[in-house]
């Protein structure tokens, strides 16, 4: 087994290690929790950890592999959460859970994917700073609209309004589903650590397979050099959109997982700060490193909980992480300096640094 692991292709081995880390983490937590060794606050963090891991992996597809900065990832999470949870509140009582829960995820993912197309088509005509600011704008628009959205049903059908609950014109025995800024309330909690774990596995399989395929190579080629990618016959729009939409779909899945973990859901939870938080996971874990995203998302979610004193400084630490990691990894002078230091301590002189391509 171990010897087979050694002869395997580097990327395959690296992917297996990633899966291994996730599975071991799941098993260890299950054993500890079975033995009564975990605290309630830690257990409460398990589903959010899974959601953030999925979000970080999916954002990494956009940032690390497509090479574009999206500042509106929370928007896709939001539409996924609202549509998935809405479906759950509608059919959760009538359908068995093993049908209703997957259905909620599918609906959340599809709706987020549709938004991915709507947002992606105009956004992907831009690049760089402009693309980033427009994703931010879309994220804010989504938040503002859901915040102002009132939705209800009565015997006459579905009613909605963007001003207030009364203007929906709901009859007396009608039911309000989304109540503006108050969002959805009275949700029957459905998310579990195991569901989160399965979602992470599915995310990993899909995204890693995607990256190591013809589509993934086209996406990375666009990232590295658009003009050269076009010159070998790659359709830029199509592959940029593919990456962007897949990224949105998984953000939607994560949103459903997150939404089904609480009794109420409000749009303001998915704001610009949340988008940045996900970005911090990606940056700290290493742009383009899926395994790094997983570890960073898990650690940064758990740490402030474990070290209670740090709670107030959480966002401050995020900010410093962003700046320091960027300067350390990207400044030409610091890269040169690091190479000198490594060169001094490395025993094999003159050998060029050989980095694995994941």
């Amino acid at each position: 087994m171990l010897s087979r692991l050694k002869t395997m292709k580097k990327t395959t081995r690296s992917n297996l290690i990633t899966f291994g880390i996730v599975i071991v983490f799941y098993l260890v937590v299950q054993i500890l929790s079975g033995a009564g060794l975990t605290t309630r606050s830690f257990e409460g963090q398990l589903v959010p950890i899974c959601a953030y891991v999925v979000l970080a992996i999916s954002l990494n597809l956009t940032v690390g592999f497509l090479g574009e900065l999206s500042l509106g990832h929370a928007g896709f999470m939001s539409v996924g959460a609202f549509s998935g949870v809405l479906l759950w509140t509608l059919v959760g009582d009538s359908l068995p859970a093993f049908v209703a829960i997957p259905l909620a995820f599918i609906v959340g993912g599809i709706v987020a994917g549709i938004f991915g197309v709507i947002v992606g088509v105009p956004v992907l005509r831009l690049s760089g700073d402009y693309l980033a600011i427009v994703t931010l704008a879309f994220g804010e628009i989504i938040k503002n609209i859901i915040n102002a959205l009132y939705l209800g049903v009565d015997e006459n059908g579905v009613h909605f309004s963007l001003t207030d609950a009364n203007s929906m014109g709901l009859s007396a025995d009608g039911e309000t589903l989304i109540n503006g800024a108050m969002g959805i309330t009275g949700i029957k909690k459905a998310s579990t650590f195991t569901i989160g774990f399965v979602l992470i596995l599915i995310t990993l399989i899909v995204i890693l397979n995607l990256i190591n395929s013809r589509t993934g190579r086209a996406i990375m080629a666009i990232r590295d050099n658009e003009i050269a990618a076009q010159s070998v016959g790659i359709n830029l729009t199509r592959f940029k959109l593919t990456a962007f939409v897949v990224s949105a779909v998984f953000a939607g899945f994560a949103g459903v997982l997150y939404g089904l973990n609480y009794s109420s859901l409000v749009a303001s939870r998915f704001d610009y700060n949340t988008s940045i938080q996900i970005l911090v996971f990606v940056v700290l874990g290493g742009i383009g490193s899926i395994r790094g995203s997983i570890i960073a998302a898990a650690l940064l979610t758990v740490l402030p909980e474990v070290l209670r004193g740090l709670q107030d400084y959480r966002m401050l630490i995020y900010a410093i992480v962003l700046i320091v990691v960027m300067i350390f990894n990207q400044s030409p002078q610091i890269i040169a300096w690091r190479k000198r230091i490594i060169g001094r301590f490395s025993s094999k002189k003159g050998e060029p640094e050989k980095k694995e391509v994941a």
Partner: protein
Amino acid sequence: MQFLSYLISGISLGSVYALIALGYTMVYGIAKMLNFAHGDIIMIGSYVIFFAFGGFGWNPILSVVVSMVVCTILGTVIERVAYRPLREAPSLAVLITAIGVSYLLQQVAQLMWSPDPKSFQSIVAGAGLKPLELFGGKLTISAEAIVTIIACVVIMVALTAFVNHTVPGHAMLAVSEDRGAAQLMGVNVNATIALTFAIGSALAAVAGALLCSSYPTLSPTTGAMPGIKAFVAAVFGGIGSIPGAFLGGVLLGVIENLSKAYISTQLSDAIVFLVLIVVLVVKPTGLLGKKINVKV
């Protein structure tokens, strides 16, 4: 008459956006980076005025000057410490760093001055200026609005003159045109970019004073939204263009105020952002910007 009143307060809000947008547009034009932290410098500047004028009771003009000095130093330090090491790095790295700096300023402000909003005392009223009543009291224009609009126009004219008629101004134009060539011609690129940050930050202090005088709640996130909207304004008008920043800022302020008044308060931000998206998709160079060609 009511429309006129909305329009005037929109122009006033837009003038604040224009002042902030100037900082964005100059930095973007010259350093080719989106300084996300620009809005948060406004917030820091406003806190300085809050304490100097509201707390210590200093003269309003002196308070603004002190705030300008603090912001100038802050802006230059940020440029030196966080942005300069990344001058040759990919734009993604620079943008992420700038987001980090924006967060850092917000969080430091939160830890130092608490997240609770503070009630800001208008420096315009503090200077003894009174609202202007027209048409026998049917239309009242606040002193803040008048001062803001005048300040914005004066600064715009002064800045245009500075860029077009002084040696450092010419250096700025040269660096924005072609950094490498400017360097070869003996322009000190680092100093020019630092100067750009200094000017932008000083203007941010003025913008903060005027913004908080008109909208008197001050919190660590006060600068974030106006900052982003001002960037929208800068893009709207055409990034890198001083008159463009003015035009974009005023238009955006008017659009925001009118949609608040006639469409929906909750959706006014969404409308502003929709404007951004439409502008960027239809005419990414903005109203007064110029086209950039990529060399193959």
